[in-house]
């Protein structure tokens, strides 16, 4: 088990939700929330998953944890005991692996059970994983709270007594409670005020160092991913359109969508103002995705081929290791790409 070995391998993962209409709830189509994702998560890395709302980030995160089951494709976990295909296991079989994969949610208000004290919420998973005595559980929960910079005594209070940032930290403590190897952070800081967001980001980084964690960090905020992530996957309409080293994404953006996304981010630095690339129109519906390249109706470089042929996620050489992108027009690796010449 080397640090950079994949901990998770996703192969052609699809999650399609049926759309039911009418009185008889007939299935009239499918929401292609995740539509064929190939991805390796490496042990010890922070992998950013970015994209606009509705592009399938949350669904992909849940599919990793088997909270929604993939309708096609495989998720394979590899650990000390070799490789296991999680997608083929049933609930009982998954039990052993649940302990290794955890999730932190976005909404600090709905992520804790209002009817229980913090201890009440956190103790049940512990009991489930064999911590028998109450004393032991209290000690563990206390330690966890201290690990996320909160006081031990907080465990006997109710969620409504805490602020958003504190609740988010409790959510992190809960995810840590069974000592997972990988944590999916689904917009874990998006609902927080910026000053609190920084506290939580720093906490996440400290914990990662201490406990040797792997994160899949889902967010729509590309400034946060740049700071936090080692690699970044950009999603559009259920597909990964670009996947590369974090620095490479900013220095050498290949996919036209990533370019537009990056240029649209307001930068809090007056000296770094760049020209916005304004995309026309909205993200198409995932029920009827466009033919060919899903991005073609909004792409400013679109050629005929884009409308009919689905671009593969292809590998390009780069200074920082591999750089994957799904676009027909990036044909000369690292040479003059039509994409980087600014159009008027």
């Amino acid at each position: 088990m080397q640090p950079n070995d994949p901990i998770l391998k996703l192969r052609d993962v699809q999650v399609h939700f049926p759309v039911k209409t009418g009185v008889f709830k007939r299935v009239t189509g499918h929401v292609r929330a995740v539509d064929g994702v190939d991805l390796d998560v490496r042990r010890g890395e922070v992998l950013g998953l970015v994209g606009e709302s509705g592009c399938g980030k949350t669904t992909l995160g849940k599919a990793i944890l088997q909270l929604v089951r993939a309708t096609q494709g495989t998720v394979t976990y590899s650990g000390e005991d070799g490789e296991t295909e999680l997608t083929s296991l049933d609930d009982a079989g998954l039990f052993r692996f649940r302990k290794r994969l955890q999730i932190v949610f976005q909404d600090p208000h709905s992520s804790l059970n209002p009817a229980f004290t913090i201890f009440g919420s956190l103790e049940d998973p512990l009991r489930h994983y064999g911590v028998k005595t109450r004393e032991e559980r209290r000690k563990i929960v206390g330690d966890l709270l201290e690990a996320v910079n909160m006081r031990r005594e907080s465990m006997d209070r109710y969620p409504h007594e805490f602020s958003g940032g504190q609740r988010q930290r409790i959510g992190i403590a809960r995810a840590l409670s069974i000592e997972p190897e990988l944590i999916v952070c689904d917009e874990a800081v998006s609902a927080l005020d910026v000053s609190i967001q920084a506290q939580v980001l720093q906490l996440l980084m400290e914990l990662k160092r201490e406990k040797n964690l792997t994160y899949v960090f889902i967010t729509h905020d590309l400034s946060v991913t740049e700071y936090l992530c080692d690699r970044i996957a950009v999603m559009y309409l259920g597909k990964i359109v670009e996947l590369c080293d974090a620095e490479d994404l900013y220095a050498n953006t290949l996919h036209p969508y990533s370019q537009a996304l990056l240029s649209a981010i307001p930068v809090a630095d007056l000296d770094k103002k760049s020209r916005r690339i304004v995309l026309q129109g909205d993200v198409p519906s995932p029920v009827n995705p466009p033919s060919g390249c899903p991005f073609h109706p909004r792409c400013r470089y679109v050629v005929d081929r884009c409308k009919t042929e689905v671009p593969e996620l292809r590998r390009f050489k780069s200074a920082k290791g591999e750089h994957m992108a799904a676009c027909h027009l990036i044909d000369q690796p690292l040479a003059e790409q039509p994409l980087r010449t600014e159009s008027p």
Partner: protein
Amino acid sequence: MTDANATRPRTRRDAQFDKIRDREAALAGTRQHTARFMSKFLNNRLAVVGFVIFAVICLMSLFAPLIAQHDPMSPNLRAIAKPPSAEHWFGTDKTGRDVFARVLYGGRVSILVGLGSALLSAIIGVIIGVYSGYVGGWLDWIAMRISEIFMSFPQIILVLLLVAILGQSLLNLIVIFTLTGWGGIYRMARARMLSIREEEYVQALRSFGLGPARIAYKHMLPNALGPIMVNITLSTAAFILQEAGLSFLGLGVPLSIPTWGNILNAAQDLRVLEQNWWIWLPVGATISLFVLSVNFIGDGLRDATDPSQQG
């Protein structure tokens, strides 16, 4: 005071605002938890009053043998349809039975029927609704269809049917009410579950691999308890009224057993209604008072469990 309000006429609300503002200014820095708690509690006066009335009626019925001086069943031919007196506080009915004793003993049956059926239907409704609401799928579908059958059938016909099959008895009445009543609580519990199911803490529990029964009953149910309690109180009241109604129609508990409904039965006679007010008025008032008090408690519970009211 300030020129912002100079041209705007001062209203009562302004005076109220001034009072609040000045009080806060005076208390700045200090905390005043207890005062706030008391005021919140007192705001719920009705619920407290309701609870007191409820407790008094329940206790008096429970201890009826100690309180009542007369046997509620044995007629006294020397005192037929007598108005209230020191001997018979609520007077006597047409066969000379003490109305006060009958109201007390009647309470035992009526409250048992009301509370008993409400609790039973709640237990059934909650057990089915919570689980099927959380798990969904075919189980949910079947439970939903069954409850729809019970609920779309006109209730009175169902009652008539069941009475015809099962006959008249106390137990049968409870069975009938439970059968017709569980659907409402089931649907409410299920609906609550459907919305709680999407909360992130439930997802978190699932990600720990906890079983569905544990998540549904231990973690989700407490969050649905508020409306369920309210529903129990409301259906208690409804069942008591229904028992009175059914007994009034001669479909409820056998006439020989005193229940509030059976006592009220006497008022079917127009002469009694006009001339012997003591036969029906006290029991009518007791029923109203009891139902009202239960409703007050229900409202109080609803407020108390409303998250926006939590401090």
